[in-house]
């Protein structure tokens, strides 16, 4: 009896303990190690032991044009992808938010892009974008538009990648907002209708403000992942042509596993983490404000 009461009294520690130890060992320590490495000049290929160089790696990486381009590209990619996904996702949710024949089929359909393997999605879009045999150029041609180079040109590669991200992840926003809409109470909408508000006014001033916290949560989730987008870019372009589609995550990967410049890649990863953290925090503030 005494033994079991020890377990019971400390359940709040004992139950989560294995998970805590696991996360500490496999995530927290490694991340701290990365942080530590960012203050060294370690290069795995040189074979030389690393030395502590303070902020020198930061100074070097942060002054490098390739890094600065990757940083601004990461922001641009994320901004356009998430804004388009947000607007489209909410719009589609509002369209589908009624009872209709085939609604469950429509919802199942929306799930498909979300569970499709990103690498494979990227490869399918590579065929779609192929300048000489791809469906994309065929579609442009059949409506009389000039053909494009899509991911083969540094001018169009980022918009083309954003399109893939939008295709794959807009349904996530839609499904989340649909679930949010389903949980709303009818009363404010009814009250507005009695007061003679038009459908558009109800949507604009009643429904959307009520689901705003849900919309912003969906946007945070998307934002975190969009900033870290890796699979489709790596599979479709590998960061190319040239460096034209290198985001921070791709650049960090190359520095780590292609050039083995561990010190400098750690700097990139620290910056990436700070960006993800700051952006999520910003939107969380916005969300808190929208709830009051």
């Amino acid at each position, binding site marked *: 009896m005494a033994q079991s009461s020890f377990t019971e009294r400390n359940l*709040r520690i004992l139950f989560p303990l294995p998970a805590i130890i696991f996360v500490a060992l496999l995530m927290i320590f490694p991340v701290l190690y990365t942080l530590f490495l960012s203050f060294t000049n370690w290069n795995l290929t040189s074979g030389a032991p690393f030395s502590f160089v303070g902020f020198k790696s930061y100074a070097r990486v942060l002054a490098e044009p390739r890094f600065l381009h990757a940083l601004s590209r990461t922001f641009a990619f994320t901004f356009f992808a998430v804004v388009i996904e947000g607007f489209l996702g909410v719009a589609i949710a509002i369209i589908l938010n009624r009872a209709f024949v085939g609604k469950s089929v429509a919802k199942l359909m929306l799930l498909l892009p979300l569970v499709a*393997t990103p690498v494979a999605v990227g490869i399918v879009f590579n*065929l779609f974008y192929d300048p000489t*045999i791809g469906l994309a150029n065929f579609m442009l041609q059949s409506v009389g538009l000039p053909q494009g180079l899509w991911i083969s040109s540094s001018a169009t590669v980022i918009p083309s990648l954003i399109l893939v991200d939008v295709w794959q992840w807009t349904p996530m926003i839609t499904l989340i907002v649909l679930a949010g809409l389903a949980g709303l109470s009818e009363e404010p909408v009814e009250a507005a209708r009695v007061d003679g508000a038009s459908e558009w006014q109800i949507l604009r001033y009643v429904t959307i403000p009520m689901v705003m916290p849900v919309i912003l949560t969906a946007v945070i989730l998307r934002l975190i992942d969009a900033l870290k987008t890796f699979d489709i870019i790596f599979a479709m372009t590998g960061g190319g042509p040239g460096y034209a589609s290198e985001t921070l995550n791709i650049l960090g990967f190359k520095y780590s596993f292609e050039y083995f410049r561990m010190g400098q890649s750690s700097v990139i990863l620290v910056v990436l983490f700070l960006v993800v953290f700051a952006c999520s925090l910003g939107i969380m503030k916005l969300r808190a404000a929208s709830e009051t």
Partner: protein
Amino acid sequence: MKKKLVSTIFFYLLVTGIALVVLFPFVWMLASSFKTQVDIISWPPKFIFSPTLQNYQKVFGEQDFLKYFFNSTIIGAVSVGLSLVLGLPAAYSISRYAQKKLAVFILLARLMPGISFLMPWYIVFSRLNLMDSYVALILSHMLISLPIVVWIMSTYFSTIPREMEESAMVDGATRQYAFFTIILPLSGPGIITATTLSFIFSWNNFMFSQVLSMEKTKTLPIAVYNFVSYAEVDWGGVMAAAVAIMAPAIVLTMIFQKYVVKGLTMGAVKG
């Protein structure tokens, strides 16, 4: 009356349009996987063609596809299973003792860029001779599934009234006994949701396996990716491989549709 008919027609046109956009990559992938190379590279693209199975024969014949399939399945199943073992008690504790900080701690894994722990793993696993081992792959994939399990299950446990275990505790049962005998048996739907979602995310993971696996533990996404690098022009084979890798996740989604939707939307809506 007429106005209503017009708006209904307009609505279904809109839904059809959305469906076309969502489905066309799948349809095109499927169609291309049954085309000969000649048909795929012809211009204008062929919409009507005589289907062939040669791409599938090639993928499943020449490539070690079944091995990669097995690797993906084992790594997914074991990592999800272990994540449930670690995650269920943790989620219960978070739910019942309102351990917000603990939840954030575990969910940090969702926020962190994967490479920021992947690089140290690469160094450590190389030293320990664990590169290309199931241990390394399973441990890394647990970092994908554990946050999902904790996120979904802590929300789920909070929907089970406290009276369920408290009435048993009044009768003299310990809380841990009540957790295993009363709460867990009630948690089927939540566990199905968490398991399905974690498995799909593990199945689709590319980055961890790309770094930590080589020939022995190679998973399907890497195999598909390598297939492109080696045989850039063999579109039919690549598309057949893409179909083969997506099919299991899509079938799982169809079977557990309700649960998958819940899992993806749960935390966001409850806030």
